[in-house]
């Protein structure tokens, strides 16, 4: 029971109140729960919901927006399967179903006083955007905040306008990189060319008392984790948000286990130290 209603088993109706295309295949949705008592929808950054498109089914999606919009929340959706395809045809004020929020999310309260390094690859920006806004809302509690974000190509960079705004902030650092560049500064953003590990080696950021939160495709984890540890960030302080097939969201359907941990209910955010030694985890 969260947010006043039991949303674990039966999807509650939600209305699409905003829709913004971020790239050719990715769209940001803002939704609100429609119920008479005006449900609050609070969550921790890193948590996810199960979104239902009637007759299509359900998909797990990271919550991508600031955690305290109270009556609305944001989801960043890439069109990859049949449900997200159906979703992409929906417009405000179409209705969908929502269960959740599920999973643990990032443990912000344990990070007080630390420097924080966020590393997002591709769509991995979704949960880290949520995390970044949560950190900035409580800016005074943390040390240096750095976001490194890598995308395949300039047109695949999501949230360009927001990134432009963030790049002007003095209380955080932003570094962007693309694998392949066709233009010098996509959308007026200063951007490097190369993979994220290269970016990591090439820029300055605090490495003492630092926690890293990483989200991206499996290939990113494989090449990044050694690098991070090379900078002295221990496996205890590296947090990864994992993707798995999650059908129920509550640790019942058994598709998402990583070792003896359920991605949906023990995760999806894990310390790297929890995953070391689990074959197939990374």
């Amino acid at each position, binding site marked *: 029971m969260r947010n006043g209603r039991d949303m674990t088993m039966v999807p509650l109706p939600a209305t699409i109140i905003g829709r913004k295309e971020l790239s050719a295949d990715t769209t940001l949705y803002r939704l609100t729960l429609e119920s008479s008592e005006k449900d609050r929808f609070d969550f921790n950054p890193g948590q996810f919901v199960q979104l239902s498109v009637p007759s299509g089914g359900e998909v797990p999606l990271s919550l991508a927006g600031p955690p305290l919009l109270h009556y609305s929340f944001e989801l960043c959706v890439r069109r990859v399967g049949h449900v997200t395809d*159906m979703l992409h045809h929906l417009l405000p004020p179409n209705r969908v179903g929502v269960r959740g929020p599920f999973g643990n999310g990032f443990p912000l309260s344990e990070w007080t006083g630390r420097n924080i390094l966020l590393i997002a690859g591709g769509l991995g920006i979704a949960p880290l955007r949520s995390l970044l806004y949560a950190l900035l809302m409580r800016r005074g509690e943390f040390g240096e905040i750095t976001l490194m974000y890598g995308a395949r190509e300039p047109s695949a960079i999501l949230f360009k306008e927001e990134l432009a705004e963030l790049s002007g902030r003095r209380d955080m650092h932003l570094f962007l990189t693309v694998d392949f560049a066709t233009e010098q500064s996509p959308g007026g953003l200063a951007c490097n060319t190369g993979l994220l590990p290269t970016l990591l080696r090439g820029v300055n950021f605090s490495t003492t008392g630092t926690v890293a939160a990483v989200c991206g495709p499996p290939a990113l984890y494989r090449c990044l984790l050694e690098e991070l540890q090379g900078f002295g960030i221990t496996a205890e302080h590296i947090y990864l948000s994992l993707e798995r097939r999650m059908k129920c969201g509550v640790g019942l359907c058994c598709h998402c286990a990583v070792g003896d941990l359920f991605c949906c209910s023990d995760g999806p955010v894990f310390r790297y130290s929890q995953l070391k030694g689990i074959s197939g985890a990374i």
Partner: protein
Amino acid sequence: MKKPIIAIAGLTACSGCQLTLLNCEEELPEIAQRFIIDYFPLGLTERLITGPIDVAIVEGAVSTPSDLEILMKLRNSCRCLVALGTCALWGGIAAMKNQESRKDLAGTVYGSAADELKTFNPQPLHRFVKIDFAITGCPPEKGELLATLAALLRGTFPVFPRYPVCSECRSRENLCLLIERNEMCLGPLIQAGCNARCPAVGIRCEGCRGPVTEANVAAEMELFLKKGFPRDEIVSRMQRFYPEWNYEQRS
């Protein structure tokens, strides 16, 4: 909701798949009400492909120039192409003897008239055009056809399970013909969805729905050989509905 415009066509086949649709007697009024049926030679007097079509549903394999012409015409005028039934998806019964000479086969059936026939090895649709979705089965299951139509109304395709016939067969608590009767049951290799129709009445799975994802063909072959079936008998059984098994495939 905008009514989808559909076309239903048959190529080299027995029309059984199209009959599956006509046999949905209870649902036909609803189907007629929710779809615009633009082309359906089996069920309509009007026989012209007139314009842009949302979904073309095609039964049968391609084995003649005129099959190919109809297929191309439909592909060029439709948004989505659905292969209906095993022949359209895998080649099916008509393709059973594809490894033999087409000329000899035609000669055996038609004698000297065979020379006039314009025919080539029956092939599944995907050899010629892109298919967007397939409903397998010989004939397809009513339920899967209706679920597909229902999904089309919403602009999508349904998700059908990708496990073998054995799964449904075990759930139904049938006697395992492979283990208990040592029969040449193809259940482990064949796409489910039929609710183990044949094994439920004591008939081994003949494989009419075609291969399941990741069929372990080599292991099934070893099992049959171990049970004493001659290899050519196994191959001939397996080719009945799908001529292109890779007998070395394990995953």
